[in-house]
């Protein structure tokens, strides 16, 4: 009897221990992988966007592939459209997602290239739940100017990692865009088509810059 109790206790001990090992291992590997993913992205951005030989058109096309490779573009686009995603037709969704990608690429290519030339330092990483983590980083500015605080919200399905949101000095890109776009839709009588028209004009103007 005593022997059996001892065995059960040992089994419980192993299970308890095992549980801790599994949870802490998965949390810390999520954090480590997320942090490595951001550092790698920064290195990639430096090598592909700061090349002197590339003109703006070339940089745009390089940034577009980097953006699609590293950002959860569809999830972000869907989040940004908010409650209007449900109201949009399939054609509207498709056109919207294309224009959304265009807007992001042409409005951020220059700044991304500029920041890529400065050093990004990962300060810490915090696992938020089993599939997302926040990577806290700073971009050191030249000449002693104040560093820029950038938090990256990273999500994973266990294999691939994608950026879900970029928070610059406390301002989330996704949430700002969501307020911006939904305001445009409200001012166009609640129609997604109104937003698509304005996106078309905006991206066309930015491309010719």
């Amino acid at each position, binding site marked *: 009897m005593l022997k059996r109790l001892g065995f059960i206790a040992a089994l419980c001990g192993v299970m308890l221990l095992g549980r801790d090992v599994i949870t802490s291992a998965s949390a810390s590997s999520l954090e480590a992988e997320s942090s490595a993913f951001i550092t790698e992205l920064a290195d990639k951005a430096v090598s592909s966007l700061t090349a002197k030989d590339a003109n703006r058109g070339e940089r745009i096309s390089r940034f577009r592939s980097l953006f699609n490779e590293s950002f959860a573009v569809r999830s972000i686009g869907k989040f940004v459209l908010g409650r209007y995603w449900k109201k949009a037709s399939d054609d509207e969704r498709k056109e919207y997602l294309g224009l959304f990608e265009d807007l992001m690429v042409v409005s951020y290519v220059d700044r991304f290239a500029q920041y890529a030339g400065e050093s990004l330092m990962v300060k810490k990483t915090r696992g938020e739940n089993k599939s997302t983590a926040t990577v806290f980083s700073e971009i050191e500015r030249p*000449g002693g100017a104040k560093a820029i605080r950038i938090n990256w919200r990273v999500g994973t399905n266990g294999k691939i990692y994608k950026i879900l949101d970029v928070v610059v000095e406390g301002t989330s890109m996704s*949430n700002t865009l969501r307020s911006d776009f939904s305001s445009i839709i409200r001012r166009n009588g609640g129609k997604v088509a109104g937003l698509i028209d304005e996106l078309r004009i905006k991206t066309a103007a930015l491309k010719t810059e």
Partner: protein
Amino acid sequence: MREPTVPVICLRVLSVVAVLSGASGCASAPSPDDPDAVAEFLQVNDPMEPVNRDVFEVNRVLDKAVLKPVATVYKAAAPEFVRTRVSNFLANLRSPVIFANDVLQGEFKRAATTFLRFFINTTIGVGGMNDMASALEIEGHDEDFGQTLAVWGVEEGPFVMLPLFGPSNPRDTVGLVVDFVFDPLRMWASNTDSNYVPLARAGADAVDIRSENLEVLDDLEKSSLDFYAAIRSLYRQRRADAVSNGAGSATVPAPGIGELPGGPTLEAAEELSRR
């Protein structure tokens, strides 16, 4: 005869704007049959939107005509060395207000940091121009009475666009006035009839802050479709971030949360840990 102080002028302008815009100044609420629209209306929380947009346009005209050109020239002409020292000097002047708000928020460690920084930077930093404290890894932070009210549980209230001062809300507007009134430097200035001091300082602050935000605001204006809505969102997020002292809350909505599958292995680990 004392000249009116900045907040008093500001409140006067605000009341004139409110009277001029009259009853037409309210945003129309959506029909109560559409719960999604009602939820959105409450979340946007900008009942004075038409007036706010008008004030925003006036602010933008003033910014384009005066503040932005001055900030741009300042950034281009003054060497980084000089601008950093001006920035440090102005930040050091804010120390007493930051210290008071640290204490009011019960953040005694941060209060001690602020005090120590003020002492170091004013003495060996030569009047605050050199941030010697940061060099000694005593990093600074900002606080204001709007944040203190938030820590005390006061809600921000509806969005307000103030003339000249820009985006705000009732809570932060009260904070602005309280910080101004209880600022030791202003008290000294007003007791010695040197009212130009707070004015000069406000001007210097405006140019300093604007020159530091040239890129961010240009980017936002460039990428946004509705600049006003983007600024409204940016202001609220920055304030929430300041109140939480940059903790980066996981409760802020973000894309993909709950959409990305955890994967079978992670799912299993989660399941195990619950047993």
